[in-house]
């Protein structure tokens, strides 16, 4: 292990964490936390590489078995019996479309409504703002029956549109963008007007580039929000090939152990957590920048 760094530039004061013991203690706590979080995921992965028989006969080995290829191929392309043999590939596609649709849709709608509220003067502007604001107090669960009825009437059950549209409006994101837009100096808006930028030009040339870190941070949060949706997809999808991976995972598990293809459940669980991890890892730099600094 590397020698803990102690500052030696003439300053004898030690910052917290710079003494040797505190560095080791801090690392021990961090590693312990990591193990607690990571072990169940590792164990799921181990289970996903075993045969069904190995899983059902405890104890489960602590190292991966030899069924990786078979299990993953079967789950991705064959599918479990309890969900009508729909492959996890289809489920992943459905969920990706839904999560992307929700994230992109939410960002588009909220950035446009925030743009209207902050930069335009129109009648009932504040009334509309407050209307958006109070929807914060109405979660999906509260308005789920009327929403479901509307979706049925529109014939959107078992469609991507039905999965995405009811979840697209977002008061939180609108408020977030509103707060950010209000920090943009009025002179900048006026400079753009003098420079001949109309409302659309201003939006695309100036507002959107300035908001890109906010958009990135929001995208990560909203993608994961969309990915982990449970109640709404459960209601609005009946066909197994239109459902999301989270719902499918639940459907794959039966009360009777023997009825459940545990090895495929484990594979599906692993597959379900890979895309959100990828999004976070790939967008981490932007995500942190969006949370930390506002570039102005």
């Amino acid at each position: 292990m590397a020698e803990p760094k102690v500052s030696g530039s003439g300053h004898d004061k030690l910052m917290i964490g710079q003494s040797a013991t505190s560095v080791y203690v801090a690392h021990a706590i961090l590693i312990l936390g990591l193990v607690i979080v990571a072990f169940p995921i590792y164990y799921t992965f181990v289970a996903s590489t075993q045969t069904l028989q190995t899983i059902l006969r405890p104890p489960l080995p602590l190292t991966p078995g030899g069924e990786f290829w078979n299990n993953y191929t079967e789950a991705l392309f064959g599918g479990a019996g309890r969900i009508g043999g729909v492959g996890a590939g289809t489920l992943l596609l459905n969920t990706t479309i839904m999560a992307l649709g929700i994230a992109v849709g939410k960002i588009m709608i909220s950035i446009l409504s925030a743009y209207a509220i902050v930069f335009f003067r129109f009648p009932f502007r504040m009334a509309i703002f407050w209307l958006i604001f109070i929807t914060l107090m109405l979660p999906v669960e509260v308005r789920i029956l009327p929403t479901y009825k509307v979706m049925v009437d529109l014939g959107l059950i078992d469609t991507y549109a039905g999965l995405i549209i009811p979840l697209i409006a977002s008061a939180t994101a609108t408020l977030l963008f509103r707060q950010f837009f209000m920090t943009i100096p009025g002179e900048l808006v006026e400079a753009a007007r003098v420079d001949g930028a109309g409302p659309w030009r201003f939006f695309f040339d100036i507002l959107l580039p300035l908001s890109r870190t906010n958009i990135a941070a929001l995208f990560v949060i909203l993608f994961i929000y969309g990915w982990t949706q449970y109640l709404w997809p459960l209601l609005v999808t009946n066909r197994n090939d239109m459902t999301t991976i989270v719902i499918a995972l639940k459907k794959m598990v039966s009360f009777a152990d023997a009825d459940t293809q545990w090895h495929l459940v484990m594979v599906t669980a692993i597959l379900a957590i890979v895309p959100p991890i990828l999004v976070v890892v790939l967008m981490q730099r932007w995500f942190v920048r969006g949370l930390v600094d506002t570039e102005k």
Partner: protein
Amino acid sequence: MATVDLKDVRKVYPGGVEAVKGVSIAIPDKELCVLVGPSGCGKSTLLRMIAGLETISSGTCAIDGKVVNAVGPTERDIAMVFQNYALYPHMKVYDNMAYGLRNRGTPKDEIDSRVRSTAKVLELSHLLDRRPRELSGGQRQRVAMGRAIVRNPKVFLFDEPLSNLDAKLRGQMRVEIKNLQRSLGVTSVYVTHDQLEAMTLADILVVMNAGLVEQMGAPLDIYEKPASTFVASFIGAPPMNLLAIAAKPDSQADTLEKFFANGAGLGIAAPVLAATLGFRPEDADVLGEGEKPSGSLKLPATVEAVEPVGAESFLYCAAAGGRIVVRVAGRAVAKPGDSLEVLVPAGKLHWFDSTGKRV
């Protein structure tokens, strides 16, 4: 290239506040007009109305002979330099300058040549690839100027462009703006609250107060003949000395003999209507021993403080009619506590009536 004509321009805000109460200014082609006044006097509102960023409640604004009341800022063919520069933070200097041209559909190669030649004039050529946050205050100011110049507009509008710079840079940029404006020959309107900037830059100086024009004219004319006590105290640093005077209560109202508030006589004849007497610090002199000039105002005074500036010194004195400032050349001989006689030639005295208007 263009004239700017304001006729009885008013601005009433929805709340009922009247920011500009009927202003008429005619700016001839190629001249630089400075609007100066204390904060809240309506000078910025007036400028923004010329820019088209604020609607005109009544009256007309004409650029190049065409009334532009209903024309948006883009179509007015004006360029504006803002107090906080208002550069687009995500764009490079080059794009900041090119943006307005692009929006107007200027051909690409023309944009390039215009941006590069403007950058050369402003010594920005080596900074074209930088972003605004990588520039110093003075450089940002220059980019803001460049963004205005590159468009080659009919009118330049400056909204306190130098107030964010330090004193030295401000002096430098002031000269640069003046030279640029003169060599480009673009009609300009410049808003400032700094009377020094106003005096040095203006072809036409407009002193505003409470939404109205107090006085308009050549800077030195205004300096020499301020139309009111407001202008007298606003233009010039230190400001003009103003002393209240009145006729004795028991004497006839139209007497030419007036007295200071403490009862001391003026010793010279004053206009009948005069209620305030004014003189510039540099027009006063300290009376030497044995001198007996006639026809001048003599004020006995006590020195309270001395401010040596180098080439000149300011004596802050308590005189018969109130506190006054006297400028003396070089080092001051007087010390705080000294008594002396301040002498002002009659021709250098300004008289104002009870409403503050020049008599």
